[in-house]
């Protein structure tokens, strides 16, 4: 019971992960803007976004274990934790030279596909049932659709459009996650007639 009282509110957790996606997007966009060659002049920069992604995966495990209000949420959180760790580890391996084939970028595509499917499966309501349902569908389909960008990176590793695409994907994730609660600062609880703000 004490542990339950110490848990952060669900919207805070959404916003923390949204902020994580903003940072990921900024790192990827920076790499795309200056080009891989300039970005790689400081070797540690190559590890930044994969390490961040990997860390977000590790941090998703507490979300899985402490937010157990339903089976489907627990399974969804667990799948996000694991695929983020997988994608982060594969990208770290590529940056470090432990993995050589560019096709390892496909693990990030796989991560986006699984994450998107998990979002869609755990939202059982239709698109326009309510704002949260709409955003769940939107983020799920965004993840599935944008899983093509890491694949493009596998086919044409130096093509900045693929990196930009991934950055844009993470920006979309962040905006949707910031919006995902009624008390969110963006598209928040605007209508008085919508009843009490829901978390």
């Amino acid at each position, binding site marked *: 019971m004490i542990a339950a009282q110490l848990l952060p509110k669900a919207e805070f957790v959404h916003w923390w992960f949204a902020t994580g996606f903003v940072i990921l997007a900024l790192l990827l966009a920076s790499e795309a803007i200056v080009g891989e060659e300039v970005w790689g002049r400081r070797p540690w920069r190559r590890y930044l976004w994969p390490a961040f992604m990997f860390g977000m995966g590790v941090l998703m495990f507490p979300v899985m274990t402490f937010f157990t209000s339903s089976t489907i949420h627990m399974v969804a959180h667990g799948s996000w934790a694991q695929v983020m760790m997988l994608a982060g580890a594969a990208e770290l391996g590529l940056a470090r030279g432990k993995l050589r084939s560019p096709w390892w970028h496909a693990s990030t595509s796989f991560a986006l596909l699984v994450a998107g499917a998990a979002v869609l499966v755990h939202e059982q309501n239709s698109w326009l049932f309510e704002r949260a349902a709409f955003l769940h569908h939107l983020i799920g389909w965004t993840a599935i659709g944008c899983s093509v960008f890491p694949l493009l990176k596998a086919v044409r590793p130096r093509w900045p459009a693929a990196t930009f695409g991934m950055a844009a994907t993470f920006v979309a994730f962040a905006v949707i996650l910031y919006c995902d609660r009624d008390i969110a600062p963006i598209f928040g609880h605007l209508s008085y007639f919508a009843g009490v703000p829901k*978390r």
Partner: protein
Amino acid sequence: MRRAVLAVAILAALAAPASAWAHATLEKQFPAVNEELKQAPHRIVLAYDQPVDAVPNAVVVLDAKGKNVAGQAKAITAQRELVAPLHGKLPKGAYTIRWRALSSDGHVVSGISTFGIGVPAPPVTEAVGAQGPTGTEDVVRWLYFVALALFVGAIGFRLLILPPELPEAVERRFYRLSLAGGVAVLEVGILAFLLRAEDALQLPFVDFIYGDLAPLANGTRFGQAFIAMTLGFALALALLVLGWLGLGRLPLWGAFVLGLGFASGLSLSGHSAADPGDSWLSELADWLHLSSAILWVGGLVCLFLLVWPQKELRRDAFLRFSRLATVLVAVLLAAGTYLSILRLPHLHDLWSSGYGHVLLIKLSLVATALAWGGIHRQVIAPRLRAGADGAGIRRSLIGESAVAVSVLLAAAVLTDSAPPPQPLPPPPTAAAQHRR
């Protein structure tokens, strides 16, 4: 035109959320989960984060005999509550609450909790209707042991047996094996938790996906161990990945220590912690037993998978592991003997109880594996010392490993079985009463 309609629809959906918010979550309840009450309650109150509707048999309160003692539940929309009256004054005893509520999104959410009147409440895993571990859970627990052996055992083998610098192919095989073991530990752990939850909740699959798992996760030793072990092993896996990236041996040591440490979750939530008469000593013995077993089995698997294909590593690795295995087996046997004496009050329990039968099977498998290992130590080690390449004994190593892995299966069944009851303390004699 269609674009404009779509844009308006999107904005409307974003700006004006419906009054419903996904499915309902139980926020408070009376009696609380696992609460021990001094007086019988008159009603059950379940408070949610949104208004819910009552479905038929929305709240069922079962006594120890499985009889429902609750009346028809009513939904109180203003308070977002489901309230069920209780028939008369309930007698002293343990009770199970099973509830179902219709969320405003049309989904039925379900949950379970227990309370006691004048007695401690049982954990939800022992609620009325829960049937205890099944054959599937035995298999899943066995897979968990095997995964632990591949994860923690392989890291231990890498650190304690193999030299710091390894040929690239061996290093690659090591990381494949241990990473697969780490992922399996997490996956199988989640599966084990869900199977136990399914047994406690006793719901059809469609309802189980909306079942409230919080009472199991927070209100039982099993759930708390699951939380701690999942977080610990996720961290250990992350450290293993850092080791793979070439950040030195420190992350590997971290993963090893975390892996061994969090394996204690099994000891702190199993027979050695929950059965009558158990103490910190039984928990320690259980952890030593488990740790030595996973290091031994994991080491055997590593020996034939990692070392044997690499001729130049065979001799030193085999001899080092042989020395370590002697210590591990000694700890395994000492701790196992102590735990057997603790759990079997009489020698005849070995052949007269189900627990004893499984223990006998386990002991015979352990004896086979030890005899096999003894032959390796007595016959193969001198040959390797004399310069033989040992190419012919790979199959024998696989055989010994297979027996060791089957020991883990017997251990899994044993863990899920109930030991025979401890004898009651003798009644005080007339002489003793006189002395008082």
